[in-house]
Structure formats: structure tokens, C-alpha cells
């Protein structure tokens, strides 16, 4: 099953959807992932890339009570992460702490710091502010947006404010603006909505159908990348919500996840249900905008924005994460539970 891939593989026992970069771990390139199995014992894996970069080592293996639909690592404490889980009938979300390991692998009890149990509907995402230490958390369920205050030492989370998304808007996910601690984008069936967390009011919206996933550019303010069912990937300037800055073809089937490189400008990674991960190079700066527009008029000369397509997957790819420590490395997770870590170094030089 290894195939001729350049990537480093790691197998989970069960199916899985989500993987997250452990951003707070500054000494190692680590990822955390959790399985999605309805009837089996689910697990959380803490994976570390060996120092040579040739092997993925399981640094910790913890049992998790339910199947994990979403998982996010705390950006300022490597031992803390959040999960959204389902028992099959109901949903829940919690903040967990990895116990001190001291070398031994088999102490697999996660410590639950807090339960985000104010939700009633189907919880979709828990968001941390991506740019640093912030004691707030956002959780998104089908209809509501919650802002939590998390106190790790007291092991408690309290609802600070709550806002309903309004009728007929079933929220599916969201992204927290890394440049603005008070701005959050949520995705729903027909649009992307922008919220101001101070007032919990909607500030703006991009009307666009079937958005699966949205991601802010870490380097540039106001740039948001979205992934859709059929129409691929769009890059938006949030100040101009009428039409996208750029459009990328996306995937043969749905484009499920999209993420911007934390370091290199315009590098975008997308994962799709056609079992591929695509690496894109999109000129997003303002001066490039004009060029790309003029290029669009003469598509004959248009440079292919697709740098590479990683197609060595057996199933749909749902999980995708850049390493923030080594930004040329990303981890992808296909539904069959395979984590593949790839390096994009060969494509960087080509820029």
C-alpha cells in the first residue's frame, strides 16, 4: 500500500476525518489526529515526525470515548486540544489535556478539562484563535455560535456569549481571523458570514453556495480561501464580497478542505473527495491581481496554478494540516485512516 509515494505514511486503526498541527510544540513537528468509528473504541494519536524527517512516530495513544468529528490543537499549549464527538445520536464537544507522559506510553487516560455542553444541536467545529494565546474559544453548532471563556487552571469553560445564526442558515464550520481577534467567519449552506465577537453581530457575508471549508491567509489580512462542492476553490478579499479575486479549479469531485500555508505566500493546499491533495500557487497580492485578470482574458498563456497533485490515496481525503514549525511539511488524512506527511520542498524552488 506504500506505493511509490514520497510521503511518510502512518496508519490509524480506524477511519478518521480530522488532523491538526500541534502548533505549540516548538521542538518537534507533531500532529494530532483522532479516529471516527461508530462502533469501536476510538483513539487519539499524537504523532511526531522523527528528527531525520523519515519516519512518523506515535508519541502518544489515548482512548477517546466517542467518534471524533473535529479535533483542534491548542495553539499555545501543546498538551491541550479540543474535540467534537458524536455518540451516533447526540453530539458533544470537550477540551482535553494530554497527561504528562514521562516516557511511558501506556498511560492512556486523557484528562477532560472542560465540556462545552451548552449545545443542543449538532456541533460542527471548535475554533482556537490561531495566532497566539487567547483565553476564548468558539464552538459552532448547526444553528448557534458560542464564545467561551476557558480557564485551564480552574478547568472550566463558561459561555460568554451566544448568537443564533438565524433561520435557514445551517452552519457547517468556520474560521477565526488570525489578524483580528474579534472576527470570525462561519460557513453555511448558501453563504459565508462574518461576525464581530464583541457585539456578536453579523458584519458581512459572501453569498456563495455549498462552501465546505474556509481558511484565512495567515500572512495577508482580509484574504479568505473557500472550498466548494463543485466549483472548486475561491479566493476572496473580505472587503469585496461580491466576487472572488481568483478561482482555482479544485477537484474532480468535491473540494473538502482548503488551507493556506502559514509561511509561503499564495501556497494553498486542498483536499478532495476524489482522493487527491492538490498544491496550488495562487498570486494573491494586489499587484498580481491585475496581472491575473489580464491573464484570465487570454487563457492560452495562463500558467497552471496547480503545482502538484498528490494522488496516492485510497479514499477521500478530509484532514489536512500544514506544520507551522516546518512550513514546507503538511499532513493529510484520508478516510481509511492513513496519515501521509509530505514535503513540498521540491516545488518551493520552482517558484
Amino acid at each position, binding site marked *: *500500500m506504500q506505493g511509490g509515494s514520497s510521503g511518510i505514511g502512518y496508519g490509524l486503526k*480506524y*477511519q478518521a476525518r480530522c488532523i491538526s498541527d500541534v502548533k505549540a510544540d516548538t521542538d518537534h513537528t507533531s500532529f494530532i489526529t483522532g479516529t471516527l*468509528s*461508530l*462502533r*469501536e473504541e476510538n483513539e487519539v494519536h499524537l504523532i511526531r515526525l522523527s528528527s531525520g524527517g523519515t519516519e512518523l512516530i506515535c508519541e502518544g495513544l489515548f482512548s477517546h470515548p466517542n467518534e471524533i468529528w473535529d479535533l483542534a490543537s491548542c495553539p499555545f499549549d501543546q498538551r491541550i486540544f479540543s474535540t467534537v464527538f*458524536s455518540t*451516533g*445520536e447526540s453530539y458533544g464537544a470537550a477540551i482535553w489535556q494530554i497527561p504528562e507522559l514521562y516516557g511511558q506510553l501506556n498511560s492512556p487516560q486523557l484528562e477532560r478539562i472542560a465540556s462545552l455542553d451548552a449545545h443542543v444541536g449538532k456541533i460542527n467545529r471548535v475554533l482556537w484563535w490561531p495566532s497566539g494565546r487567547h483565553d476564548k474559544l468558539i464552538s459552532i453548532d448547526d444553528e448557534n455560535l458560542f464564545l467561551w471563556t476557558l480557564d485551564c487552571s480552574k478547568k472550566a469553560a463558561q459561555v460568554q456569549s451566544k448568537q443564533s445564526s438565524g433561520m435557514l442558515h*445551517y452552519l457547517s464550520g468556520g474560521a477565526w481571523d488570525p489578524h483580528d481577534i474579534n472576527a470570525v467567519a462561519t460557513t453555511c449552506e448558501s453563504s459565508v458570514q462574518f461576525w464581530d465577537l464583541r457585539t456578536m453581530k453579523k458584519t458581512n457575508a459572501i453569498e456563495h*453556495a*455549498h462552501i465546505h471549508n474556509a481558511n484565512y491567509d495567515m500572512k495577508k489580512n482580509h484574504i479568505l480561501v473557500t472550498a466548494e*462542492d*463543485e*466549483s472548486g476553490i475561491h479566493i476572496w478579499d473580505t472587503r469585496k464580497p461580491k466576487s472572488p479575486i481568483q478561482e482555482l479549479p479544485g477537484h*474532480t*469531485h*468535491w473540494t473538502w478542505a482548503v488551507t493556506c500555508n502559514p509561511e509561503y505566500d499564495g501556497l494553498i493546499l486542498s483536499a478532495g*473527495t*476524489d482522493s487527491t491533495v492538490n498544491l496550488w500557487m495562487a498570486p494573491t497580492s494586489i499587484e498580481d491581481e491585475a496581472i491575473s485578470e489580464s491573464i484570465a*482574458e*487570454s*487563457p*492560452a498563456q495562463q500558467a497552471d496554478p496547480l503545482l502538484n497533485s498528490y494522488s496516492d490515496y*485510497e479514499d*477521500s481525503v478530509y484532514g489536512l494540516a500544514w506544520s507551522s514549525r516546518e512550513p514546507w511539511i503538511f499532513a493529510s488524512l484520508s*478516510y*481509511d485512516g492513513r496519515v501521509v506527511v509530505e514535503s513540498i520542498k521540491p516545488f518551493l524552488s520552482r517558484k
Partner: protein
Amino acid sequence: METDDVPLDDKAKRMRDLLSSFYAPDPSSTDNAPSNPGTLDAINTTSFDADQYMNLLIQKSNLEALLQRHVEMAAEIKNIDTDLQMLVYENYNKFISATDAIKRMKTNIVGMEANMEQLLDKIMSVQSKSDGVNTSLFEKRERVEKLHRTRNLLRKVQFIYDLPTRLEKCIEAEAYVDAVKFYTGAMPIFKAYGDSSFQDCKQASEEAIAVIVKNLQGKLFSDSESIQARAEAAVLLKQLDFPVDSLQVKLLEKLEQSLGDLQLKTNDIENASMESNDPKQGKVSDSVHITAHEGSVRGFAEAISAYRVIFPESEEQLIKLVQDVVVKHFETTEQYVKGRISSANLMCVLRTIWTDVLLMDEVLSEAVLPVFSLEAAQIALKQHVASTFNYLLQDISDALLRVTVSSKEAAEEHSLQVALEASKKAVLQGSMDVLLDFRQLLDDDLQLLVQLRDFIIDWVQEGFQDFFRALYDRFLLLSGRNSSSRQDQGLTGAHGEKVLAGLVLVLAQLSVFIEQTVIPRITEEIAASFSGGGARGYENGPAFVPGVICRIFRSAGERLLHHYINMRTQKVSTLLRKRFTTPNWVKHKEPREVHMFVDLFLQELKESASEVKQILPQGLARKHWRSDSNGSTASSRSNQLRDDKMTRSNTQRARSQLLETHLAKLFKQKVEIFTKVEYTQESVVTTTVKLCLKSLQEFVRLQTFNRSGFQQIQLDIQFLRTPLKETVEDEAAVDFLLDEVIVAASERCLDPIPLEPPILDRLIQAKLAKWKEQNPISP
């Protein structure tokens, strides 16, 4: 012998030198530049030092040489002595001859004085006599002169008194030249004495002159007079101090008026040539108009030449006037070109203009009208080419849109096919017509066009290049607009949406047609009759690059095809999303029948298939295709596996589901779900089905089912199997995908116990019966 000659010459030369040095005013000037006294040659110079010479000689020479030198020197001294004697003698000689000459001069002068005195006396007497004659005749001459003056004066007075009658006579005889001459002659007198003695006379003659002026003016303006006469009249008027400038302006105005007439006639010609599209009736009137127009232009040219003769200084104004005419001509032409005209009509107009220009050029070559009109014609032609392509583009999009509209009204079965055919025809025929049209421009031998030939070729090539780019943009616009309106229409305008989706398909096929048929034809045609050009410069290459256009349309075709498939799958996606997000799957009730979304799904596919059938060609024979492809082994294997799995699945699927699927995947080759789309009915339908099933699988994966929910999915999928396989090319992939859906459902099921096969069978049979009942014709 030589040695004898040389000293002789030397001797004579030295003598001459000595003589001349003697007589020369400044003896030092003859001196040679002082030479080095250290040599033996220095003997002849002024700076000669005998002692030094001696020393040098003794030092340098042996005895024999010294002796020889001594002999030589003695000879030389002797020579010099004789020379000296001769010089003295000759000098003396010359002195004697000079004295002789002076003596002779003195004797000659002695007798002259007496003769001179005699001459003086005679002259004196002649003078006194002539003085006497002069004084005696003086008085008479004085009187004669006085009489003569009086006579002249009287004659002048007579002339002035006669002037009015004389002028009358001149007017009668139309001898205006004489009249003017007389009048101008009398002018100074009138000016001096007009107010006193000659008052009556002056008035009478002024009246006469007024008549003359009037007549002259009339002559100037009457076109019937010869040019010469009119020119004369102008000159005369000018002599009479008549304000000629105002006359000039007037005449110019008249010319301008006639210019207005010309303009009208041009319009007539255009109308005529428009009419001449109706072959017979138009032609007659056309030619009539042309001759009429030519006549008036000729008249205009004559008027101009006359004017030029009359007012030679007015060239600039005339040039401006004539250029105005040409500019106006081309303005109307440009207006005309904006409309929809054939090149033949344009040529007709151009030819008329060109003849006009030539006519006018004959009379006024300074206006460089040919060059001027060449430039204007260049612009007009360029516009013509551009507008022709514009209209072609318009035609094509009209052809596309018209069919869209008409099929909206009456949803015929073959409307899309009609649309495709019509637009194909519009593209191919249209561009061929355009080429043919431009060929006429090239074939014509009108000088104007011949000069612009290279430009025309380039414009046509460029025109095609731009045209196809514009067409491509238009295609994208048409399909893009659909994609935006699709969201507006949503589910409400299902019918309109169908037409638009069809249009995208038509566009896709049209792109292929353009790439494969139209471009090669046009390339051929251009190579045949539009080669050359090169006004652009060869380094740029030819303006029309079929390779680029082909590439554009190939990619456009693919994009549009994908767009079509996307539009189709998107509709199904919406359907599926509704189906899977609405019910609570965890509390699903036991399946009683196949869910109705299956019907909707199949109906969508049928619609799509009917569209596809109209537009796209059938692929290769199916069996052939399958056995040929690489995927054959994989498909057979996965088929077999599926059968295995199905038999087993009924008994023990519930356990170790995950392990089984993983193992199955290990042994199964990866079935290529997402293959390249071909321009065939089967390929497009298959791709649509595959994408829809993949979506179905993804939707299932997002839900959690109870046992009944799972069984419902199982039932629906089982039912889908047969009709899908009938429509689809790649059975293996579809089978695989259907299995995947069931697997996904079982994975997401809390209690995955499948339906017993008999129940499954019975439910499917029931559905089939119901289905056949509803639409008995369909397979």
C-alpha cells in the same frame, strides 16, 4: 664625355647665379642655408673657413688624393678667373646699349611742340562758330516746344470729354478691357480736377464704369462664360479697385454649396448600391446614379479649376475645400460601414470616391488627394473588417440564443440538435462568407485597394484572430451567465435550466467543431488567398495563428463539457442533499418501498441523456471499447469480487465489516472513478453518473443510520443498479461506486444488519411494477 659636359653646365649656371646675385636687391637672400662647415663641400658657402678646410683635407686624404685635389683646385681657380673677366665685359656691354637708347629718345622729342600749338588754334575757332549758330536758333525752338505742349494738353482734355461716350461704346461692344484702360488712364485727372471743371464728365464716366462693374460681376458669376473671360473679368474688377476678396468669398460659398449637392448625391449612390442587393432593378438605378454623380463631380472639378485660374492665390482654401469633400465622403462611408454591408457595396462606394478623387486630383494636384484619401480609405476599410467580424459574432450568438428562446416556447425534442446545426452553420458559413467577401476586396483592381492590399490581408488575419478570441469570450459569457442565473432560478425554473444546460453542451460541441473543422478550413482559405501581407513586419509572424486558436477552443470545449457535467451533477447534488439532510436517520422507520428520490435521480439522468443524445456523437462500440481498454482486467476482477461480497454480505456482513473492506481494497485494483471525459454520449453520461454516485457516498458518510435507515439505503441502491448499468459505459466503476455507498452506509450504521434478500427482491419488484405502470414506454 659626361665629365666634359657637366663642368661646362656648371660653369654657365654659376655665371648666371653670380650675375643675378649682383643685380639682386638683397644679396643675402640668395645665400644657402648655412651648411655644416665640417665637410669638404662647404667651400662654396659664405661660412667657409680656409684653415679648417685645410686641416680637414689633410686629415682625411692621403698624399695622392691631396695632389689630385691640388690639381683640381688650380683648374677651378683658373676657371673662376675667366668667369670674372667675362662678367666684367658683359656688364660693360649692357651699359653701352643703355646709353644708346637714351640718346635716341632725346632726338625724337625735339619736333613735337610746334604741331601742338597749331592744333589748339583750330579747336578754338570751331568752338566760337558753333556758339553763334546756337544763339540764333534758340528762340524758334522755344516756340515750337510750347506749341507742342499745348496741343497735347488739348488732346487730353478732348479725351476726357469724350470718355463717357467712349465708355458707352465700349460697353456696347463689350470691350471692357479698353474701357477699364481708358478709365484708369483718366483716373488721375478726375482725382485732381474731378470736383471742379470735369464734374459732369466724371459723373457720366463713373456711371458708365458702374455698369461695367456690374456686367463684369455678372460675367464672373455666370457659369456659361468661358473660364478665360471670367478670369479676365476678375482681373479687370481688381484693376477697378473693386473688393475682389468679397467676390472670392462669394464664389467660394457657391462652390461649397455645390459641394453640398455632391454630398447628397453620394448618399444617393449608397442608397442605390443598397438597393442593388436586389439584383436587377437596383443595377439600372445604380448606374444612373453613378453617372449622374460623376457628372456633378466633373462639374465641380471644372469649377475648381476655373476658380483657381480666377484667383490664383486661393489654393489653400481650395485644398481645404477639396479635402473637405473627401473627408465628408469618407465620413458617410464610415457611417455606411457601421451598418451591415457587403464588401462589394463598400467597393462600389470606394470606387466612386476614387474616381472623384482622381477627377479632383487632375485639377488640384497640390492637395495630394490620393494620399489623403488612401489614409482615409485605410481607416474605413479597417472599420469595415472590424464591423464585419462584429456582425459575424453577433450572428453566431444570435443563432445560439434564438434557438434557446424558441425551444423555450416549444420544447421540441430536437431543439438542441437544431441549435447545434444552426450555430455550426453560422460559424462555418459565416466565416466562409466573410472570407469570400474580403476576397472581393483583394481581387478588385481599384488602385486604392491595390495599394492597401497588404494592410487588408493583415487586417483580415488579425480580424480572425480577434474574432475567435471574442467568440471564445462570448461562449464563456453565455455559459457563465447560465451559471449565475442557475443560482437565481434554483429549483423553480427547472425547465429554463434544462435549456441552459443544453446550451452549454451545444457550446462545448461547437468549440470542438470550430477546432476540428472551421479553423483548418479558414487556415486553408487564408493560405490560399490571404498569404503575404507583412505590413506588420515578419518578425511578428502572421497575424492569424491557428495553433493558438485551436488550443483555446480545445480547452474551451473541455471546460464547457465539464461545466455541463457540473451543472447536471449539481442538480442531483441538491436533490441528494435534501434527501440526506432532512430525515432523522437515527430514528428511521423500516423501509417499505424504494424512496422516491431514486425516481427523481433517474429522471434527471434521463433528461441529461436526451440532451446528450442530441448533441454528442455515439462513442465507439461498447464491447469493443471495454475489451480494448486497460481497465478490462480490473473491471472483471472487481465484478467477481462484488458478487462474492454480495453473497457473503447477506450472511455475515455485520461482523468485521471494516476488516473486510480493507482486505478487499488490498486485493482490488483501484478502480479509476475519475477518468477523462470524452466527447461521446456514453462518456458524458457515465461521468455524470459517477460523480453523482460519489456525491451520494459522501452524503451517506456524513450521516449516522439506525438499522432501518441502512436498509433503506441498501434497498434504494439495489434498485438503482439495473437502470444505471443500462445507461452507463463503465459498468465496473458504477458497480464499485454503488457498493461503496452500501459499505459507507453500513460503516455509518449503529446496527448494520442488511435486509434479507427475499424482502429486498420483493420490494424491488413492487417498485419495478409501479414504475412500468407509470411510464410504460421507457425501457
